[in-house]
């Protein structure tokens, strides 16, 4: 009885892992670091989380999860509320719609797909941000941020992949 309950709890916790990790990563990403330009150029960890988990475990990362992570990111970063949620939902949707493309593919192909998705996401963010804020920010920081996001995706994959292997390999 107790064992069964514990097993159930264990399963529930494991199933909550992708979303929980995404929230923790977003939270950590706003901690002030003594690195010049960090806050401006910080890569989008929220995008990496949503992309990774939607590609690898779409069953554990539903659309509302992407929405919630985006909203949380908006709230902490001070971005227009709903913008991040909107963009991450689109990212989630485009991956789910094309999930056959990603299945069993080599890492560099997934990475290339991530680069395209990140580029489009950044573009949509800038356009919507422009519509909401009435001013276009400097493009250089936005481009650098995009490059960093793409460049760091393998690191995110390694970290999330480790969690996935250790905790979610059974199912």
């Amino acid at each position, binding site marked *: 009885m107790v064992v069964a309950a514990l097993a159930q709890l264990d399963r529930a916790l494991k199933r909550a892992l992708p979303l929980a990790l995404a929230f923790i990563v977003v*939270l*950590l990403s*706003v*901690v*002030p*670091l*003594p*690195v*010049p*330009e*960090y*806050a*401006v*150029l*910080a890569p989008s960890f929220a995008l990496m989380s949503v992309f990774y988990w939607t590609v690898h475990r779409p069953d554990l990362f539903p*659309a*509302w999860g992407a*929405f919630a992570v*985006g*909203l*949380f990111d*908006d*709230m*902490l*970063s*001070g*971005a*227009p*509320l*709903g*913008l991040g*949620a*909107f963009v991450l*939902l*689109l990212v989630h*949707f485009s991956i789910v719609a094309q999930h056959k493309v990603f299945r069993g593919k080599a890492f560099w192909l997934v990475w290339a797909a991530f680069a395209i998705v990140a580029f489009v996401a*950044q573009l949509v*963010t*800038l356009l*919507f*941000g422009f519509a*909401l*804020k009435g*001013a276009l*920010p*400097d493009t250089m*920081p*936005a481009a650098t*941020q995009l490059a960093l996001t793409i460049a760091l995706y393998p690191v995110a994959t390694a970290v999330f992949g480790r969690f996935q292997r250790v905790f979610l390999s059974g199912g």
Partner: protein
Amino acid sequence: MKRTGPMLKIAAPMRVLAQRAAFMGLLGSAVGLMVLGKAEAPFVERLRMAVTDAVVPVLDGISRPVQTAAQVADNVRALMDVNAENRRLRDQNAMLLHWQQVARNLEAENRALRETVHAATEASFTYITARVVADAGGAFVRSVLIAAGARDGVAKGHTAMSPVGLAGRVGEVGERSARVLLLTDLNSHVPVMIESSRDRAILDGDNTDLPRLVFLASGSRPQLGDRIVTSGHGGVFPPGLPVGVVVQTSEHGGVRVKPFVDFHRIDYLRVVDYGTGGTLPIAAPPPQIKRLR
């Protein structure tokens, strides 16, 4: 329950349909939130600050060791050139002692002159010091979260000062957290003046490290190294707060100012209530006008 063949045939399209509906619903909510936020609905700010309030204790806990580690690294670096630093400080101390004498003389003179003309004494102000617990950027915002809010006396429009100069103003306030909009934010427009010439201008943030000086008085020619201070116009900031120095005066790049505050290393901010009455004097008329009606 085990699914049978025909059941599955009906269930699968239904599930896809339900997923689509949920997706569209969420997308609609996101757009709705953006529109509400654009219209500055109070609900959006309350929601944002409620969540911020909830995570600020956690952020406070995480950022402390990070800050300590950075301080340790700084100390090690400082130890390496302690001799050179010592010499520099001695020189600076000698110079500052001279300035102290000048300031004392001026203060005495100022007091005497004020008494002569019966000038009103300047209003006193209150302040609190708050820790910076989150430094959030992105393409559109330059702001930090501080671990002090309405319960500590922080209110919208209060001035955020670093020890060396103006950092920004309080934009949103929760119960125990507040968001400070930095000088470099896209939405930051600070009425300033060139200290030496008293020429007025507006300091506009554009998300780069060097905000731009716009609406300069015609004929005004800012020079490299000119000090910029707040002008006090518009009633948001009191006059005379140090802001930065002019570092660029090119034709197409415009006049750019390097703020005195080092935005990469703000651990603490002093939130000052200068009693200037916040940011929206038109939307919130002073109480005595209300009483007249």
